[in-house]
């Protein structure tokens, strides 16, 4: 009964739309953290970004009906996988966007492959998504641990910071960040003099900072995220570690974290991001619109990535005149990407989206002219240098 009605409905809609353009309706789920640690850098802002992509693409005029749903995965893989299953099986969702937190992303990645749908990940960091866990159904859009390590680790060593001590959040993701960065540091001629594993999440990092200080390393690498990073940077300032000449390298720091720290505390911090709102006219104009819809907060790179990924997905749907996942995915990998936020780029066979990454330094309070005026650009990493080359890939999809 239900199917007949649906078929009838579709037929009618097709008739109404005329011969020129068949109506395609897609449902996209934005799944991220809406209540915890990463709610500010993804959360509702990512949903706003996805909606803006639909507007800018003028989807309705092109005969594509887009519905956006959202859910909170609470940074728990079991919650995330339950939502993903229900979305795909029950609610007719065609693609899942965003998904910060690596453990949840890996779970969604797995289910998406099983159900043959599409997952465009912007929020998660794990380079495994295009490495040993890569899937023909997943694109990893914005950044990954490899690129962060390459950016921050490589640049710091070149600038003379050749001995490192890691403060690593004691969970798989922290370990991966430490491993990736350590490898880059060694490759560039630096050395890792020590590391300490801190319970996650933690509040007091002073005793670990003292251990880092005692190591006499030139750079203290913060292989942690969110509140842990904020606390360790705050306390490093307090214990005079930065003023004594040791440099802090934030391996996963977002603009929202810098906002939370304030420039007074965060100044001088070196970090890698894929997007900064004040990069060029295109990013400024878009970010202005975004901030209006998001209570004055400028977009994070994760939110910008959701916009960019959504836009590319819609383009592929237009080009294939349908939403068959295999065809759309092939189109997305074949078409070059182009949008005002990330410029021109491409999607690689392993699902890695290629674009430049930027090394930033956080401004001094005196240098900042306006709210959210936080970064000055130190270096640009070309896409091919930033991301792991295909020749080193562990992904089975890559033919060597």
């Amino acid at each position, binding site marked *: 009964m239900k199917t007949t009605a649906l078929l009838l409905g579709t037929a009618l809609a097709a008739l109404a739309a005329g011969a020129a353009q068949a109506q395609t309706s897609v449902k996209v789920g934005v799944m991220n953290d809406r*209540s*915890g*640690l*990463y*709610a*500010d*850098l993804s959360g509702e802002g990512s949903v706003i970004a996805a909606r803006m992509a639909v507007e800018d693409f003028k989807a309705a005029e092109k005969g594509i009906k887009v519905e956006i749903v959202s859910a909170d995965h609470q940074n728990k893989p079991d919650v995330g996988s339950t939502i993903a299953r229900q979305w795909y099986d029950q609610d007719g969702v065609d693609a899942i966007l965003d998904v910060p937190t690596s453990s949840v992303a890996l779970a969604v990645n797995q289910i998406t492959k099983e159900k043959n749908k599409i997952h465009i990940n912007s929020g998660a960091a794990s380079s495994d998504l295009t490495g040993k866990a890569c899937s023909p159904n997943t694109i990893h859009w914005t950044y990954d641990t490899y690129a962060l390590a390459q950016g921050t680790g490589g640049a710091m060593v070149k600038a003379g910071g050749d001995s490192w001590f890691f403060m690593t959040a*004691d969970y798989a993701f922290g370990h991966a960040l430490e491993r990736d960065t350590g490898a880059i540091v060694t490759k560039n001629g630096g050395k890792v003099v020590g590391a*300490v*594993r*801190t*319970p996650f*999440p*933690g*509040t*007091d990092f*002073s*005793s*670990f900072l*003292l*251990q880092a200080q*005692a190591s006499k390393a030139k750079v203290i690498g913060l292989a942690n995220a*969110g*509140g842990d990073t*904020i*606390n360790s940077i*705050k*306390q490093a300032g*307090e*214990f*005079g570690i930065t003023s*004594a000449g040791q440099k802090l390298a934030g391996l996963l720091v977002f603009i*929202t*974290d810098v*906002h*939370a*720290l*304030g420039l*007074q*505390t965060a100044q001088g911090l070196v970090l890698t991001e894929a997007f900064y709102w004040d990069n060029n006219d295109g990013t400024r104009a878009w970010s202005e619109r975004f901030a209006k819809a998001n209570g004055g*907060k400028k977009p994070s790179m994760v939110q910008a990535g959701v916009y960019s990924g959504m836009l590319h997905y819609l383009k592929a749907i237009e080009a294939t005149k349908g939403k068959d996942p295999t065809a759309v995915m092939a189109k997305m990998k074949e078409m070059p990407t182009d949008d005002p936020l990330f410029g021109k780029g491409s999607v690689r066979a392993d699902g890695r989206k290629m674009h430049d990454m930027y090394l930033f330094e956080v401004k001094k309070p005196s240098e900042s002219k306006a709210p959210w005026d936080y970064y000055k650009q130190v270096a640009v990493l070309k896409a091919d240098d930033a991301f792991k080359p295909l020749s080193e890939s562990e992904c089975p999809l890559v033919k060597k």
Partner: protein
Amino acid sequence: MFELLGIPPQALFGQLLLGLINGSFYAILSLGLAVIFGLLNIINFTHGAQYMMGAFVAWMCLNYLGVNYWAALVLAPVIVGFTGVIIERLFLSRIAHLDHLYGLLLTFGLALIIQGLFRNSYGSSGLPYQIPDALRGGYNLGFMFLPTYRAWVVVASLIVCLATWFMIEKTKLGAYLRAATENATLTQAFGINVPLLVTLTYGFGVALAAFAGVLAAPIYSVNPNMGADLIIVVFAVVVIGGMGSIMGAIVTGFSLGLVEGLTKVFYPEASATVIFIIMVLVLLVKPAGLFGRAA
């Protein structure tokens, strides 16, 4: 002996000092929890959220009213303590006669509500709060750099803890309080307004949490979840010290800070768990906690 373990004695002193500083947070928080438990027989799971409110109120004072750190140190506990009084009147007084479990669940629910509301208004990544100018900088002790602010934290919390202990154990008001803890009906019969005493005690315990929150604001991230995980640890401190024991809470708070500090040197991964290991051992050997009286 220290060298045998690969740790120079200077570094060890530094770590112990830091442990003591962390211990002072545990001490103030567990003191508040113990005071509340002693009189109300309620395990106040909202304590972590109230600690967070203290830090947030300090931030609001600074950003909305231009009130500085020192004034906030008094103002924030008063404001948050007042919300505590409202909570006690509206909710807790209704379940006073019931089992622990209900008080725990109710306060846990309240904590969820408070944290959720703050998250909706201020986001989750936190707010900046600077160390007051007078307490910037630090002393070089030879074996470590001691920030002035941390030294102040230890001093402030010691003063507050000892003042509280004195008030409860040595003053007349404290005597009423202890009497009400022992036998509320009888104390009431002597003409003491026990419900009022209960309300004020809860307000006071909450104010202690808020005080710790203000102390924490310049050095820890001010965010809605800052107290969520802490509460379990502080609760463990109270149990180890002996439920309801004032001195127990203070001494245990400081000493567990020390133990945690040592763990951070020798086995950092376990530093969040060591308190629970101690709790099991203590409960198996001394069922009522280190300073508690056997029931």
